[in-house]
C-alpha cells in the first residue's frame, strides 16, 4: 500500500484552508491544518508520521510565517519538511525573504488550483528523488559518503579548486577481524561509527567517506605551514580519545598531484601505502610514492604470467655447487630457481618468490623444482655417472598445501631415486608457527631417508631447547650477514659465526655455509670446523648443462689428485657384499684380499679423502666400511666423525682396524664404529667381525 503524503496547511483564514484542502484532496493527500505558526510547529513536532510539505501563509497572528521559518531553520527541520509559502502575487520582497529563510517554493494568492497541485507534486517528487539519492549516497551505518559518492564529491571539490593543494588519507584497521571476534558485530558497528565521527572532525577535512568495511577516507586541504608530521599528530590525537584502545589503525597518505586523476586511483594509492606498513610494528603512516604502484603493477604482471610460465617450462633449475671444506671435493648442489621469461628476460627469485609465497603458487613451483631435481638425479643414475645429492627448497606453505611426506616420497619413488639424494632445505622460521604439525611431517620425511637441512640457521627464533628437538641433519648458515665493509662490525659477526658453528657442533649437526665469496672466508670457516661450503668462491648458480661440465671437471681433478683411483675397481659382481677398505700397507692389503675375497667384493681406497668420495658415490651398495686408523691424509677418527655427521654410519657399519691399543678400540667404539679388529689380523676374528657387520647392515636396511 502506498503511503499517503501528509501536507500541513497553515493559514489563519479557515476559508483559505478549506479551499486548499479541497484542491489538494484531488490528489489524495492527507491534509492537516493549523491556523498560526505556533500550532503549525506543534503539529510538525508532534506527528509520529512525518509531514512532507507545509503550505504556509505568512501573515498570521501569534506566530507568523517568517517566525515559523526561522524556528524551523534553527531546529534543522528543513531536512525533513519542505515549506511552500503562500503569498499575495504582488509581494516580491516577501517571496525572496521567505526563500532565504528556507522555504522551497511559493504560491500566490488567489490560488491557481492547477499551479498549486503541480507545485505540490513537483516538490514531493523532488523529495523522493533526494531521499533516494541520499540512500544511495550515504553509508547507512556511519552517515559518511559511500565509495561512489565519495569519489563523486571529492572530484567536484578537486575540479572546482584547481589551485589548492589536497591530500587524501585512508585508514584501515589491521586487526578488525580479531575485534569482530572479540567484541561482536554490534560493538564493531559502534567502533566504525565512532571512527566515522572522528573523521568528520578532521581538521582541514573537506569530504570524508567509508570505502569498505573498516576503510575510511578523508580529502583534506593541505595547509602550507603544516608539516606532514603535524597532520599525522593531529590525526592520532583525534583517535587517542577513542574509548577502545586495542584496535590498530594504519594510515596511507596520497598527495594529490593532478586534480584530474580519478579519485578511485588516489584511494588505491593511499591504500597501497598502507600495505607497505601493514606488518611494520610502530609504523602508523605511510606516504604513497610512485615505486609502490610500480611494485604492485609488477606483482600483478608476474602473477598473471606465472601459470603459463610453469606450463611452458620458463622456470629453470640452476645449481650451485657445495664443496667439502676439507677435501674441497664436490659434495652436492643446491637447486635454485630462475625464471627466464621470453619477453622480460631473467627474473630473479628475490622478486618472484615473495609474491608466490603470498599467493600460494610457491607450492606448485617447489614441486616442479623437486621433480626437476629428481629428473636430473635419475639421468645421472641411468648414465652411471657419479651421483651427488641435490638439495631443494621446501616452503612453509608446502606443509599446509600437501601431505608433504607422501607427496615427496611418491615423487622420488616414481623416479627410483634414493631419498637421501634429495636434501630438503627448510628455513628455521618455517618451524615457528604450527610447529607441532610441521615437526611431525619433517620427522616422517627423515624416517623415509630424506636429509633435512635447516636453511638460514641463526636467522630465526629457535630456542636452544627447540633446536635440540627439531628433526634436522644439517645446519645451513648464510654468510650474507658477515659481508660488511665495517671491520668492527665484522669482528662481532665473526664471534657470532664462531658461536653458531660451535653450537651446531655441540648439537652434533654438520654445517654448510652458503654465500661464501672469499678465500679468507673459506679458511676461517675451515678453522671453525664448518663442514661444507657453498658460494661464489666456488661457483655462482649455473645452468644444469654448465653444472654437469663443472661436476665432470671436479671429479676429473679429484681423480687426478688420487695416487690410485678407485675407478678401476670392478663392482660388476654384485653377488657378494661390497666392502670398502682403507688400507695403505701393501702387505695387509694382500692379507685382507686373501682372507676376504672368497666372500666379499673388495674395494681398497688409499686415503680418507678417497674413502669419503667412494662412499659418496657408492654409499647405496657398500655393505661395510673397514677403516684403518693410520691414513696418510687425515686422522681416520676425523673421517668417522664426518661419516657420522653425514649419516653414513647410521646405514653402513664401520669396522676399525689398528694396532691393538686400548684407547684406539675405546675411541673407535665411542665414535660409533660397529667393532674394532686389532692388527695383526687373526683370520677367524676378522671374518667374524666383518660377517657381524654385514649382517648388521642387512638388519639396518630392514629396519629403515
Amino acid at each position, binding site marked *: 500500500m502506498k503511503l499517503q503524503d501528509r501536507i500541513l496547511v497553515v493559514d489563519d483564514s479557515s*476559508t483559505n484552508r478549506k479551499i486548499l484542502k479541497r*484542491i489538494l484532496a484531488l490528489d489524495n493527500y492527507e491534509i492537516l491544518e493549523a491556523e498560526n505558526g505556533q500550532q503549525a510547529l506543534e503539529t510538525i513536532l508532534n506527528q509520529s508520521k512525518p509531514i512532507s510539505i507545509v503550505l504556509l501563509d505568512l501573515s498570521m497572528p501569534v506566530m507568523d510565517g517568517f517566525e515559523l521559518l526561522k524556528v524551523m531553520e534553527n531546529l534543522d527541520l528543513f531536512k525533513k519538511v519542505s515549506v511552500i509559502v503562500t503569498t499575495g502575487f504582488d509581494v516580491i520582497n516577501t517571496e525572496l525573504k521567505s526563500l532565504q529563510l528556507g522555504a522551497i517554493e511559493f504560491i500566490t494568492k488567489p490560488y491557481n*488550483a*492547477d499551479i498549486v497541485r503541480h507545485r505540490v507534486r513537483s516538490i514531493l517528487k523532488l523529495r523522493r528523488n533526494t531521499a533516494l539519492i541520499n540512500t544511495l549516497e550515504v553509508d547507512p551505518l556511519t552517515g559518511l559518503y559511500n565509495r561512489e559518492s565519495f569519489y563523486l564529491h571529492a572530484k567536484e571539490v578537486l575540479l572546482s579548486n584547481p589551485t589548492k593543494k589536497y591530500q587524501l588519507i585512508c585508514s584501515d584497521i589491521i586487526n578488525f577481524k580479531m575485534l569482530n571476534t572479540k567484541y561482536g558485530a554490534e560493538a564493531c558497528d559502534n567502533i566504525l561509527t565512532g571512527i566515522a565521527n572522528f573523521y568528520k572532525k578532521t581538521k582541514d577535512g573537506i569530504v570524508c567517506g567509508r570505502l569498505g568495511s573498516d576503510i575510511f577516507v578523508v580529502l583534506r586541504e593541505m595547509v602550507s605551514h603544516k608539516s606532514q608530521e603535524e597532520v599525522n599528530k593531529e590525526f592520532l590525537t583525534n583517535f587517542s580519545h577513542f574509548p577502545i584502545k586495542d584496535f590498530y589503525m594504519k594510515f596511507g597518505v596520497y598527495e594529490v598531484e593532478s586534480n584530474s586523476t580519478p579519485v578511485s586511483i588516489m584511494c588505491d594509492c593511499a591504500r597501497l601505502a598502507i600495505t607497505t606498513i601493514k606488518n611494520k610494528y610502530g609504523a602508523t603512516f605511510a606516504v604513497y610514492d610512485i615505486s609502490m604502484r610500480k611494485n604492485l603493477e609488477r606483482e600483478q604482471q608476474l602473477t598473471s604470467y606465472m601459470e603459463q610460465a610453469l606450463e611452458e617450462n620458463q622456470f629453470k633449475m640452476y645449481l650451485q655447487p657445495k664443496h667439502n671444506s676439507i677435501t674441497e671435493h664436490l659434495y652436492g648442489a643446491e637447486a635454485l630457481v630462475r625464471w627466464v621469461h621470453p619477453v622480460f628476460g631473467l627474473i630473479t627469485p628475490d622478486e618472484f618468490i615473495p609474491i608466490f609465497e603470498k599467493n600460494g603458487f610457491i607450492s606448485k613451483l617447489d614441486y616442479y623444482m623437486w621433480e626437476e631435481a629428481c629428473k636430473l638425479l635419475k639421468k645421472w643414475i641411468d648414465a652411471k655417472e657419479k651421483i651427488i645429492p641435490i638439495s631443494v627448497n621446501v616452503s612453509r606453505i608446502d606443509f599446509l598445501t600437501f601431505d608433504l611426506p607422501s607427496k615427496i616420497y611418491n615423487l622420488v619413488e616414481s623416479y627410483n631415486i634414493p631419498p637421501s639424494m634429495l636434501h630438503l632445505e627448510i628455513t628455521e622460521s618455517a618451524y615457528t608457527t604450527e610447529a607441532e604439525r610441521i615437526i611431525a611431517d619433517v620427522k616422517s620425511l627423515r624416517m623415509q631417508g630424506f636429509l633435512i637441512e635447516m636453511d638460514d640457521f641463526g636467522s630465526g627464533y629457535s630456542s636452544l631447547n627447540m633446536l635440540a628437538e627439531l628433526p634436522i641433519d644439517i645446519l645451513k648458515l648464510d654468510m650474507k650477514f658477515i659481508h660488511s665493509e665495517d671491520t668492527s662490525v665484522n669482528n662481532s659477526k665473526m664471534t657470532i659465526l664462531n658461536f653458531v658453528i660451535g653450537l651446531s657442533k655441540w648439537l652434533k649437526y654438520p654445517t654448510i655455509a652458503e654465500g661464501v665469496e672469499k678465500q679468507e672466508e673459506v679458511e676461517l670457516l675451515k678453522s671453525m670446523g664448518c663442514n661444507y661450503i657453498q658460494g661464489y668462491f666456488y661457483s655462482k648458480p649455473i645452468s644444469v648443462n654448465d653444472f654437469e661440465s663443472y661436476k665432470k671437471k671436479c671429479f676429473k681433478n679429484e681423480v687426478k689428485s688420487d695416487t690410485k683411483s678407485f675407478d678401476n675397481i670392478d663392482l660388476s659382481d654384485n653377488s657378494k657384499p661390497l666392502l670398502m677398505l682403507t688400507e695403505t700397507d701393501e702387505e695387509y692389503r694382500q692379507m685382507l684380499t686373501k682372507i676376504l675375497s672368497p666372500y666379499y667384493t673388495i674395494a681398497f681406497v688409499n686415503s680418507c679423502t678417497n674413502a669419503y668420495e667412494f662412499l659418496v658415490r657408492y654409499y647405496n651398495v657398500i655393505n661395510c666400511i673397514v677403516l684403518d686408523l693410520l691414513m696418510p691424509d687425515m686422522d681416520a677418527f676425523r673421517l668417522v666423525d664426518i661419516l657420522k655427521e653425514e649419516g653414513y654410519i647410521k646405514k653402513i657399519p664401520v669396522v676399525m682396524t689398528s694396532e691393538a691399543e686400548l684407547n684406539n678400540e675405546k675411541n673407535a667404539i665411542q665414535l660409533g664404529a660397529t667393532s674394532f679388529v686389532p692388527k695383526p689380523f687373526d683370520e677367524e676374528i676378522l671374518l667374524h667381525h666383518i660377517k657381524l657387520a654385514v649382517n648388521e647392515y642387512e638388519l639396518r636396511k630392514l629396519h629403515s
Partner: protein
Amino acid sequence: MDFKDLLENLNCKDIELTLKRFVGDYDFYIESVKEFINDVRWMSLDKSIKAKLVKETFDAAHLLKGVAGNCGLTTIYNLLIQIVEPLRDEAESENDKVIKNSVDFEKLFLVYEKVLEERIRINDIIGGIEI
C-alpha cells in the same frame, strides 16, 4: 443560477480559475463566500480603521483580501488592496502601535465605505441562497 452566472453577478473577473479553485463545487463556494461575509475580521477591520491602528487594520484587511481573492470577489478584493498597500510599509516596520501621520486614513475610510457597500451587495446575492 448556475455557478458561472453567480460568479458573473459577483463581478468575478477570473471565472475559470475560480471555478477550478472550488473544484466546480457550487455549494462549497456559497459556503465559503458566506464564511467570508461573516468573518470576524470584519469587526477587527472596522474597529482598527476607526481607531487608525496601522498594523491591526493591515492584518485584518490583508486576511480579508486573501479570502476575497480566493473567492473570486474581484471588486472587494481590489478595494481591500487599496487599504492594504498604503499600510504595508508602516505595518511591516515593526513600529506600528501608534497612529501614523504618514498614512492618509481619511482616504482609507472612503475606500472602506466602498468595501462595506460591496460586502452588502455580495451578501444580498449570496444571503438568500440555501445550501
